[in-house]
């Protein structure tokens, strides 16, 4: 049972790293207080994990047959990778980390099911694309409606300030429901936990990470990519949340970071492509390549030589 400890560690680092995708802009611009942001995120992540988390558990579990001990190592490898990237303040993908780790372990035992991998990778590729498409469309439509409605600045101010809270909560819900499978899905595959228990434990660990270590990444994501006005920030979070929610229904855990970056790029496309800071994009893309690789190696090595 103690093997789930590494999963909890993984959940913690996911919470610390990914929560910035939701309220990053809000906190960095001072629109939302840090305390409010993390409380809302933690709560709704847990709700999302419990209500819809099990939907993605199967996909993670079926990647390769994993023994409890190997599950421990996989989650640990993924967690270490995530923590490393969090310290470097690079938004990282837990999905890629855990999948990299599981496959690394699977290569050794020979049970790695690469056919599943294709489905997952396709979803990974489509995550930012979906983010771009949804945010671009949402922006255009909602902007048009907002202009039409001719509301005054006080009403608009109210819409933005409550909107950011509402979309953020929804975003946290979607993060929980989609990503909890990354955290504890591997234990469902190893047969240690049921989907529901895994969702609960995973959700709690993510919430814990949000509450304790998310400040640093929040400040980077908020200011790093695109200078976002309140309306754009709202659309970005909403689009990313919708993207995650769609992939939850498909059953594949994807990267919330990629969804957000896609959403932000989509908004940038509405105005001027040059609004996206290229350097930051490069840094993030680098992380996406290094993540599965690092995690895979970190899983492969201990299992090969120790177990």
């Amino acid at each position, binding site marked *: 049972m103690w093997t789930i400890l590494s999963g909890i560690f993984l959940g913690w680092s996911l919470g610390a790293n990914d929560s910035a995708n939701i309220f990053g802009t809000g906190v960095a611009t001072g629109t939302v207080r840090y305390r409010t942001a993390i409380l809302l995120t933690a709560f709704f992540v847990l709700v999302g994990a419990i209500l819809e988390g099990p939907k993605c558990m199967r996909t993670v579990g079926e990647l390769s047959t994993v023994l409890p001990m190997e599950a421990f190592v996989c989650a640990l490898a993924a967690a270490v990778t995530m923590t490393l990237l969090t310290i470097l303040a690079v938004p990282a993908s837990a999905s890629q980390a855990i999948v990299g780790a599981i496959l690394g372990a699977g290569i050794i035992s020979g049970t790695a099911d690469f056919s599943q991998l294709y489905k997952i990778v396709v979803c990974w590729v489509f995550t930012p694309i979906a983010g771009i498409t949804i945010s671009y469309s949402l922006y255009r439509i909602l902007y048009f409606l907002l202009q039409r409605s001719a509301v*005054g600045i*006080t009403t608009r*101010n109210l819409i933005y300030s409550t909107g950011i809270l509402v979309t953020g909560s929804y975003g946290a819900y979607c993060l929980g429901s989609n990503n909890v499978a990354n955290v504890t899905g591997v234990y469902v595959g190893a047969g240690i936990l049921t989907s529901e228990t895994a969702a609960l434990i995973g959700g709690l660990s993510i919430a814990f990470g949000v509450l304790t270590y998310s400040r640093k990444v929040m400040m980077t994501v908020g200011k790093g990519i695109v200078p976002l*006005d309140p309306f754009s920030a709202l659309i970005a979070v909403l689009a990313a949340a919708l993207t995650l929610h769609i992939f939850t229904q498909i059953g594949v855990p994807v990267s919330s970071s990629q969804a957000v970056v896609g959403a932000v790029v989509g908004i940038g496309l509405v105005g001027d492509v040059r609004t996206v800071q290229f350097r930051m994009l490069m840094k993030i893309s680098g992380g996406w390549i290094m993540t599965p690789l690092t995690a895979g190696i970190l899983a492969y090595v201990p299992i090969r030589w120790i177990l």
Partner: protein
Amino acid sequence: MVFRKIFSQGKKELDVIDDIRRQIKLLCSACEIFRTALEKQDRELFWDVIDLEREGDSIRREVVSHIYEGAFLPYLRPDLCKFVEIVDEVLGLVKDAASLGLNMELPEQLKDDCTRVALLNFRMSEMLLFTYEAVVKGQDPREKMLAIRIYEKKIDDLKAAIFGEAYRIPIRDFWTGKRLSDMIKGLTMISDMVEDASDHLQIIHVSMR
């Protein structure tokens, strides 16, 4: 508890908007009274203008403290405060002109043009109020800002004529001359500042889109 916070949020912003509206209306009154005072050489009215400026100053302080108590999104606050401060500065200019008016009388050859400038200042401040209302409603203030620029151009022309005429007036002593110079300069600077204020309204309008 959350709902109360949301509703009180809306109220805070409405209060700020109302206060700023009061401030601009005060400016309009000040300009109107000043013009009448100039025309009729009425000392009482000059004192009224000075009182109005003091009232405007206290409104400014109220608005700024309400804003920093948490009205409006953080990125909007500096622009709102800057606008309020500019309006306060204009009121200050009108008050300065009124103070001068208490101690001097305009030479005959300048009276007509100066009263015209005072009238146009009043019209400009009215237009500033219209611009403000448009921005608050979320409408494009472009038309009204154009009107402000037209008034400003008219005043500029008058300013050239006034100064040209003023240079020909024989001055008794330094302080008389200084008072006259300060009065004319103050009168004509009001329009520049009102135009500046309207530019800031445009900034606020764009930030809120």
